[in-house]
């Protein structure tokens, strides 16, 4: 039996190779994703531990910036005087104490005066001190050049320098947060974190004086201190010693704690990326499983005569099943091996793609861990065996007498049971997905579990169940589609078309399973398409409804900019009104110094007197106007805090000032302003430094918008962080972000579609072999080679279109339901018919492409050989 199995494997090399490819791709994607997320993890933890000192002195409870705001009397930001550092240095437990100066809001311009794009990872600007990390090594490693010595010198990370087009010795333009905004400094070198890479962060390293010049108005003060322990001193002892001299409002914490905090913070972000990628790997594996089921089914159908002969010669059912499963096992081991290796390559490809996007990942951390290898093999082997199980059971059912029969067709299988079970499942799936519309029941399960109430989750689970059950009974559901397609292709291509349509219908289960692979991919693509289009439509609607000014000025990165810009704009010819908006932080209620965690931070939206004239706020109670000493709150916020119209609320600012504005109106949720809206005058009184988050501009009557736009553009030309946008530009900038994500998802789903193409190639290739004699007959009685190729191509297109029709129908259905579940955020529904048509066109192209090789092979067959085949 064993030898027979191996013979079979060898005899069907090409056929098996194709189905192996499906597993290879699935496993490769999984291994690639695992390797990549492991590398990402390693990169970040390398950076974190490589850039953390033995201990750190920092503002107490600085873990949350919002909580820092709760420290009255500390000025805008608590700072350490040089004397405090000197005192630390006198302690015997401390080998080094290095003052840290750091800040935000700094940008690098490239050689063409454009902002150097970042992946969303932070820009880290600080001073170089030579401080040591946990391992006693320098935190920063110089890659090239030298460290900055003067105020006018700078070191960048290599990737940023390269992207910006700077070489060591060049003059670099910076946009500073305060003071003189545009500054020129000299690049003296490039550096990286000890531990490799920067993970996409931009490093801007200055001399201490240079950093102070930028961030502390030149004052010799420090934000934090990095401590290095003397030999033999533990982190704990170091912290205890340091705390004896640390000034009020500061605390010393161990390096281990800092590492843990950083890893916590970054871990969530990394998990999101990993889960996101793994979801696509799982989809690829599921699609691959369909192809394996199909290939084995076909191979067994073709081999049924041989299997029957074995049975007639005395092989038991179990032996037949085992031989098929063993074949699957050998195949899956080969495939998983290739897949793991390919996955390693894929991880490097992913890393390269992320590098393009600015997220630097060192390639030496992209290694195959035992865990990755183990999981990949397990998934590859288990999925293949599970997929081969059904066909192997069917193989065992081939009766011995089949060996003597003329027809090699397997006995017709009863599908009624399967169809009805599938329909029940489908109904259950649809029911789940429709639940949010009907109303989610509130049942508590034993053990304290609650039925989840997130509508999106219900729709998601329902969609998953439905898509899989449609795949299961695609033979039944696809029949009317196939019949329609047959009629269509007969109309278009005559007899060739009819033959193709008939062939696709010959074994509906085979056709259905092949189409299902494509269906899953296209269902997800079109579901995402509906959501993205709805998102874009919602953005358009919201912008249409709420974008009232002629122009808006704001930073694409949402960083505040100096109020002087607004002042200048007011003077521009054609500008009638400039309405300012500022965002500030405060603590709600009375500040509890003993228990800083209890303080409730809040973002305040500061506006001026023009705001209520420009925008239509929907006042549910009171007025939509806010005067100094008053506050507008949204309905939601009022409900949460049990605030009533006319109440006074307590606000405590960082400066220590307190305000008690009175609620003048309760407004509906809006994109125009935040939860709590006050007047800028009040913020000024609370000693919040003036700066603007956005400007809303009304034009003078008769002013040409294009001309004014151009004038304002000139005004901010040297401020790349500030953009002037009209309504369309504003909407486009938001949609741009949605579409970027969309393209990424499409890119990942493309893999599922590639696997589906392989499935079609596979099925067609096997069918062509199965129908050798018939094809020979057709050729003998006058089917030309071209017609033969067309027939096979049409069959392929029929399969692909079936997959597309089912997939698009499901995708649109669940896209609509999901949109419905998310209607708070996605206010309008949009079904992108043009995109759906494009997907259908892609499916046709996929069909044509998949038929290429089988059609050429069929055409090459010798007519006589075809007739002579036994």
């Amino acid at each position, binding site marked *: 039996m064993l030898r027979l199995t191996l013979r079979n494997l060898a005899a069907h090399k090409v056929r098996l190779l194709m189905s192996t490819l499906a597993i290879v791709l699935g496993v490769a994607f999984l291994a690639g994703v695992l390797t990549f997320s492991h590398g990402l993890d390693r990169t970040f933890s390398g950076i974190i531990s490589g850039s953390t000192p033995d201990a750190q002195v920092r503002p107490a409870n600085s873990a949350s910036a919002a909580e820092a705001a709760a420290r009255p009397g500390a000025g805008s930001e608590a700072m350490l005087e040089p004397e405090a550092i000197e005192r630390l240095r006198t302690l015997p437990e401390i080998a080094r104490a290095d003052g840290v100066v750091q800040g935000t809001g700094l940008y690098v311009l490239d050689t063409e005066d454009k902002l150097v794009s970042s992946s969303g990872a932070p820009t880290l600007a600080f001073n170089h001190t030579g401080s040591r990390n946990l391992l006693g090594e320098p935190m920063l490693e110089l890659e090239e050049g030298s460290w900055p010595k003067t105020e006018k010198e700078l070191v960048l990370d290599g990737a940023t320098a390269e992207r910006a087009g700077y070489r060591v010795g060049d003059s670099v333009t910076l946009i500073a947060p305060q003071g003189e905004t545009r500054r020129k400094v000299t690049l003296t070198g490039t550096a990286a974190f000890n531990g490799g890479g920067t993970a996409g962060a931009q490093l801007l390293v200055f001399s201490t004086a240079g950093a102070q010049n930028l961030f502390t108005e030149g004052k010799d003060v420090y934000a934090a201190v990095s401590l290095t322990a003397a030999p033999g001193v533990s982190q704990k002892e170091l912290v205890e010693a340091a705390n004896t001299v640390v000034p009020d409002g500061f605390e010393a914490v161990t390096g281990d704690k800092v590492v843990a905090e950083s890893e916590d913070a970054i871990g969530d972000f990394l998990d999101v990326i990993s889960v996101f990628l793994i979801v696509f790997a799982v989809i690829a594996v599921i699609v691959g499983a369909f192809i394996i089921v199909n290939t084995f089914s076909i191979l067994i159908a073709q081999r049924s005569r041989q299997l029957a002969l074995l049975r007639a010669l005395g092989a038991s059912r179990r032996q037949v099943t085992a031989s098929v499963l063993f074949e699957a096992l050998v195949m899956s081991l080969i495939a998983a091996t290739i897949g793991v290796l390919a996955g390693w390559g894929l991880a490097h490809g992913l890393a390269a793609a992320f590098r393009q996007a600015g997220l630097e990942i060192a390639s030496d951390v992209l290694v195959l861990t035992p865990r990755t290898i183990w999981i990949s093999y397990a998934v590859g082997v288990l999925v293949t065996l599970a997929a081969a199980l059904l066909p192997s059971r069917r193989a065992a059912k081939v009766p011995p007498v089949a060996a003597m029969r003329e027809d090699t067709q397997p006995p017709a299988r009863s599908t009624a049971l399967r169809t009805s079970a599938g329909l029940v499942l489908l109904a259950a799936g649809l029911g789940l997905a429709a639940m949010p519309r009907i109303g989610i029941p509130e049942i508590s399960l034993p053990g304290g579990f609650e039925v989840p109430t997130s509508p999106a989750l219900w729709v998601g689970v329902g969609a998953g169940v439905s898509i899989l059950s449609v795949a299961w009974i695609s033979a039944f559901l696809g029949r009317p589609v196939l019949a329609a397609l047959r009629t269509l292709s007969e109309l278009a291509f*005559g*007899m*060739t078309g*009819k*033959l193709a349509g*008939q*062939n696709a*219908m*010959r074994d509906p289960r085979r056709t259905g399973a092949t189409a299902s692979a494509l269906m899953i991919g296209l269902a997800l693509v079109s579901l995402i398409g509906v959501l993205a289009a709805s998102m874009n439509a919602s953005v358009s609607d919201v912008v249409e409804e709420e974008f009232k000014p002629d122009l808006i000025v704001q930073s694409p990165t949402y960083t505040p900019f100096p109020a002087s810009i607004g002042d200048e704009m007011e003077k521009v010819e054609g500008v009638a009104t400039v309405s300012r908006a500022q965002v500030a932080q405060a603590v709600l209620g009375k500040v509890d110094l003993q228990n800083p965690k209890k303080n409730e931070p809040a973002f305040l939206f500061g506006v001026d007197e023009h705001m209520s004239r420009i925008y239509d706020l929907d006042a549910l109670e009171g007025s939509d106007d806010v005067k100094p000493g008053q506050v507008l709150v949204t309905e939601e916020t009022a409900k949460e805090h049990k605030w009533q119209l006319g109440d006074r609320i307590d606000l405590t600012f960082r400066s220590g000032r307190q305000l008690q504005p009175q609620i003048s109106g309760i407004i509906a949720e809006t994109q125009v302003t935040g939860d709590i809206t006050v007047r800028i005058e009040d913020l000024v009184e609370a000693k919040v430094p003036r700066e603007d988050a956005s400007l809303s501009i009304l034009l003078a009557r008769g002013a040409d918008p294009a001309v004014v736009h151009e004038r304002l553009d000139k005004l901010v030309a040297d401020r790349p962080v500030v953009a002037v946008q009209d309504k369309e530009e504003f909407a486009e900038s938001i949609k741009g972000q949605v579409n970027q994500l969309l393209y990424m998802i499409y890119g990942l789903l493309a893999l599922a579609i590639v696997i589906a193409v392989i499935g079609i190639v596979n099925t067609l290739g096997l069918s062509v072999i199965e129908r050798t*004699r*018939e094809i020979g*007959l*057709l*050729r*003998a*009685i*006058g*089917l*030309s*080679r*071209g*017609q033969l190729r067309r027939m096979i191509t049409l069959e392929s297109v029929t399969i692909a279109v079936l997959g597309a029709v089912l997939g698009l129908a499901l995708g649109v259905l669940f896209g609509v339901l999901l949109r419905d579940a998310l209607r708070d955020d996605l206010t309008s529904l949009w079904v992108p018919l043009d995109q759906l048509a494009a997907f259908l066109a892609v499916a046709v192209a996929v069909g044509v492409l998949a038929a290429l090789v089988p059609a050429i092979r069929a055409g090459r067959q010798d*007519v*006589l050989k075809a*007739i002579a085949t036994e």
Partner: protein
Amino acid sequence: MSLTDPAPQDPAQREIAAQAIDVHKTYGKDAAEVRALDGVSLDLYAGEFTAIMGPSGSGKSTLMHCLAALDKPTTGEVVVGGRKLGRLRDRRLTELRRDKIGFVFQAFNLVPTLTAQENILLPLSLARKKPDPGWFDQVIDTVGLRPRLDHKPSELSGGQQQRVACARALASKPDIVFADEPTGNLDSTSAAQVLGFLRHSVDDLGQTIVMVSHDPVAASYCDRVIFLADGRVVDELAKPSREQILAHMADLQSRAMGLAPIGEDA
């Protein structure tokens, strides 16, 4: 060449439907070389029902395939309907098979997904031609399958399937129909139906048919019987009876067993 009966017509006046001129066909090389056809020259006349007979392995099927443009001779020339096949490309050969030649195999003649009627009209639909309704009716009535036209091949008996195959071969009014042991898989009753039909189509519809057969009964339906042995034409009979054929075959058999050939010494 012929020693017995004279030809039914004067050979000079008969129209040639297909012709083999010194056709050789060899398979394999050197030691393993097999001469399936070893210099066959042959004229097949329009309006005749010709049988090709001979021992197993004598090259009958090979000759048919070469004549029917399914295979190419190693050397020599085949002419069908006045066209030399040697220089034609696959596309022209396909058209020739579709429009000028009909073919019936021993088995597996029909496309299982199509009905009997669709199978019969298949060559025409592939050429995107309309069937001649009068001709179609005539063929269907001759074949006697009118009530079964909408059935799939799997719903027809073996004999019925072969008759459908014959009807298909005739449907495009080909210049010549080749049939390789069309009754090889049938019992004598079904075989008689198929052969009767072929005879009718020659007599009543004026068709030209060439048939390979082992069966003297089948060959006795024919106007002319050509004998093949070792890839060569060794003899032919005109309008033979079953007994004549049997006698001839026994004669060939004995020659194959080492006796002096009769053909040459005449």
